[in-house]
């Protein structure tokens, strides 16, 4: 069971993740209120979301389709019959005093995703309602409740405890993120809470037959924190066990500022959720025909897209993989190459554009780069209007301002100089100013050719067409 390369001080971490994903739907799971982020507090609340006396839930078919899509993408079993249960607990942002979720008959079970060649099993994925938000910093003496999020559809994806290291957990999470964003199941935005993660962490000796006692770390909201929180938790548990202590089965919170997990205040009494089938809803049978109709409308998966890019665009496996890792970038690429050279576009997207995105840590949609403009940039390189070096400058410019490529080139006079007469004049001047070097070159110092090219480029601020400069220089110096 244990993999030795993941041992830490002789201990084997065992990790399972529960990922909550807010589904992209028009409306909430059981109410016709809009499912949207960032609106004014309590403006997206229907009678049902408020849990008024006498209201009843009706299942949103859209949420069901999203769940099925995830199941299909992970080769999972789609439930023949799914059933909703009530999970009972009191909290001010839970208006009904229970959450409608799926305990025994989830929409999806037994899925699998592959992370770096290793299969990580998904135990189940079930539909449930999100709670509202409690806000604690508006007043000193009160908390306040915003119910806009109340009833937003969630898919909770529960992995088997197949993960063996914090970095593998992050890879798994990235894979889940890729699937849900690829299939428009969710926007996957972790900072807005559309994707949240709980981690179950335990450690064991490699020779142990049974897992250790696990702690659950709640609500981790970035990839970076997932890694840090799990690593902290592993170290904490090692320290306890090596001091002959015992790990407590408990829920812990990750504090990203202190970089530590800490126990959530132990309740006076253990909670007991008293699950039972929700009597306001009826079982849902999911037919083969329905599943097929969902499959038909489904976008291609990353691997499928990569295959297609390799055959359609003749990209190599690596390039296609990098481009297809992010759906936004893959779509962007397809837009760009409608008019621009494929290999050059790929090179620039994988290289310079990716570098900029990474440096600023934003996704393509958040940047000022659009496909038409970027395509223009590539075309200007191809038709020798600008050199590669100038193109980098143009890219920097449009990254900051979003201005059209042609405008940047025009306003800054960045066009490549390909006029023979003009270049001949410049070459003449340079050779006159560097007479000693000309003599040295002619006496056999061939290496000085590069010096003359450099001087021409300098004099033209890099705008001279390098091929033409080479050609003209050779002719003049021969």
């Amino acid at each position: 069971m244990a993999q030795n390369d993941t041992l830490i001080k002789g201990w084997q971490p065992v990790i399972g993740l529960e990922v909550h994903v807010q589904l992209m739907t028009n409306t909430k799971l059981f109410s016709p209120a809009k499912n949207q982020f960032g609106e004014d507090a309590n403006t997206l609340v229907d009678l049902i979301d408020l849990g008024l006396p006498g209201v009843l839930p009706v299942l949103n078919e859209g949420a069901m389709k999203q769940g099925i899509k995830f199941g299909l993408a992970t080769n999972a079993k789609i439930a023949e019959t799914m059933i909703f249960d009530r999970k009972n607990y009191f909290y001010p942002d839970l208006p009904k005093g229970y959450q409608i979720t799926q305990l025994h008959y989830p929409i999806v079970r037994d899925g699998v995703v592959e992370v770096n060649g290793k299969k990580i099993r998904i135990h189940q994925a079930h539909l449930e309602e999100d709670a509202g938000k409690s806000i604690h910093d508006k007043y000193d003496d009160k908390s306040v409740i915003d119910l806009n999020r109340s009833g937003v559809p969630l898919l909770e994806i529960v992995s088997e405890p197949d993960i063996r290291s914090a970095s593998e957990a992050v890879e798994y999470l990235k894979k889940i993120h890729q699937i849900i964003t690829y299939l428009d199941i969710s926007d996957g935005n972790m900072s807005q809470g559309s994707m949240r993660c709980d981690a179950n962490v335990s450690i064991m000796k490699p020779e142990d037959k049974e897992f250790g006692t696990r702690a659950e770390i709640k609500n981790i909201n970035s990839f970076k924190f997932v890694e840090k929180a799990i690593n902290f938790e592993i170290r904490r548990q090692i320290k306890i066990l090596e001091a002959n202590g015992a790990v407590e089965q408990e829920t812990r919170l990750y504090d990203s500022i202190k970089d530590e997990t800490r126990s959530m205040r132990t309740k006076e009494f253990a909670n007991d959720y008293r699950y039972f089938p929700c009597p306001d809803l009826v079982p849902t049978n999911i037919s083969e025909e329905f599943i097929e109709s969902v499959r038909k409308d489904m976008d291609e998966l990353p691997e499928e897209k990569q295959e297609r890019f390799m055959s359609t665009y003749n990209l190599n496996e690596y390039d296609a993989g990098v481009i297809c890792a992010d759906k936004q970038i893959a779509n962007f690429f397809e837009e760009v190459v409608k008019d621009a050279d494929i290999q050059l576009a790929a090179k620039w997207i994988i290289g310079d554009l990716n570098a900029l995105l990474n440096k600023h840590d934003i996704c393509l949609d958040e940047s000022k780069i659009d496909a038409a403009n970027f395509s223009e940039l590539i075309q200007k390189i191809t038709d020798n209007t600008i050199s590669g070096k100038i193109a980098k400058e143009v890219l920097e410019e449009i990254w900051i301002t979003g201005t059209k490529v042609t405008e940047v080139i025009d306003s800054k006079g960045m066009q490549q100089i390909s006029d023979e007469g003009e270049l001949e004049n410049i070459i003449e001047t340079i050779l006159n100013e560097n007479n000693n070097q000309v003599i040295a070159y002619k006496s056999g110092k061939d290496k000085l050719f590069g010096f003359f090219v450099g001087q021409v480029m300098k004099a033209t601020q890099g705008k001279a067409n390098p091929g033409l400069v080479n050609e003209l220089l050779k002719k003049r110096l021969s």
Partner: protein
Amino acid sequence: MDKIELKNLLFLARINAKEEEYPEIIEKLENTFELIDEMQELDLSDLKPLNNPLELSNVSREDKGNNRNNKKKFLDNSSESDEDYFNVPKIIE
């Protein structure tokens, strides 16, 4: 049912009761369970539980909604709210 069990039950249900009321509550509950427990004698292991009498299935709606904003109406119904939120005592996490 002893006092600790009742205390736990009261907390789960979020209902307050004074300790001196416990014996009376316990007696009432135990009387009811005596009535209910008659069914324990039945051997029903072959039967499937029945949750809903008509055993309907497959009721869903299209993913279409409304843009109703009931904010003011809803907040007015709460005895403690401000212009934007429902208010509760400070929750310490």
